[in-house]
């Protein structure tokens, strides 16, 4: 390497040491907000099928019970988990975000389920971050189509 090349490399090193070293702080704030938004969407997409599955299971159980199947002890035990609730349909249920787009409620029923607290955040309940991993008992209000319309906290 000749003297000029050496000098050029030194100048390039000097150039490298100049200029900004860090991205401005507002970029981190923006990205943090984006990350949270993306996570909320992802969790919502994860839990929506879970709600639907719980609802479908509830409907199936109810139909089976109503069809006059002989009530064994476990089925009887399940009865208080699933109950027709015409009179209860408007009793303090918090409407789910997607329920507005569903057909009007005709026959409602309630299924008691364990819900992760993080899914309550997605529905807009104020929940402390440190409790996000816990679960709570809640009643799901299901419509005639088996889709959840609302949720009510038991605990």
């Amino acid at each position, binding site marked *: 390497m000749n003297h000029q090349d050496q000098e050029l*490399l030194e100048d390039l090193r000097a150039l490298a040491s100049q200029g900004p070293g860090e991205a401005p702080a507002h*970029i981190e704030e923006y990205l943090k907000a984006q990350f949270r938004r993306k996570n909320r969407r992802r969790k919502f997409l994860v839990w929506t099928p879970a709600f639907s599955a719980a609802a479908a299971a509830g409907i199936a159980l109810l139909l089976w019970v109503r069809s006059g199947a002989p009530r064994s002890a476990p089925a009887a035990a399940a009865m208080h988990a699933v109950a027709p609730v015409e009179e209860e349909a408007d009793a303090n249920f918090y409407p789910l975000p997607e329920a507005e787009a569903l057909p009007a409620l005709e026959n409602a029923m309630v299924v008691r389920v364990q819900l992760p607290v993080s899914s309550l955040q997605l529905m807009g309940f104020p929940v402390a971050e440190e409790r996000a991993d816990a679960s709570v008992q809640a009643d799901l209000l299901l419509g005639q189509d088996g889709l959840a319309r609302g949720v009510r906290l038991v605990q």
Partner: protein
Amino acid sequence: MSDSPSHSDGDLLRLLSAGNEKAFLEFYRRHQGAVYRFAFQMSGKSEIAEEVTQDVFVVVMNSAKRYDSERGSVAAFLYGIARNFVLRTLERERPYLTVLDDPAGDYMGRMVADQDVFGELARHERIEILRKAVLALPPAYREVVVLCDLHERDYADAADALGCAVGTVRSRLHRARALLAEKLRAGERCAV
């Protein structure tokens, strides 16, 4: 995730793709400086550098799973994404860009020492000419100078980032340095 800073980049990418915000922030803080400097040195514009840095980490949060450790280092992965965004932005803004519109005078001011003022001024001037010369290089040469000389990446890492052969990096770098030396000589002749 604990607060331990010992997570590897691979671990952080896995955790952040599972929704772990702390992992994302640790990964961002570890790499943002290099991405930002690369975009700034490639474009000469802080607005472009900000936009590119933002875009690179949005890609990371959405597609961390795309990273394949067998195809290169995490740094090469990030430089590769940043390079694509920079080139796209420069292409889009080409009619409005000039290489002389961002003189970075704030940084130059620090270089003038009390002693040997004339020597420092001459060096200051040389580096300013060099900065403009780097920005005036064709992008294919500029990116190898920025990666290998300004960011001190090895040829293999630069080749991974640029998606080309190591030999290509070596030959482009050789040519780029020759162009820079020529511009510096021309600049000195003008100063005399």
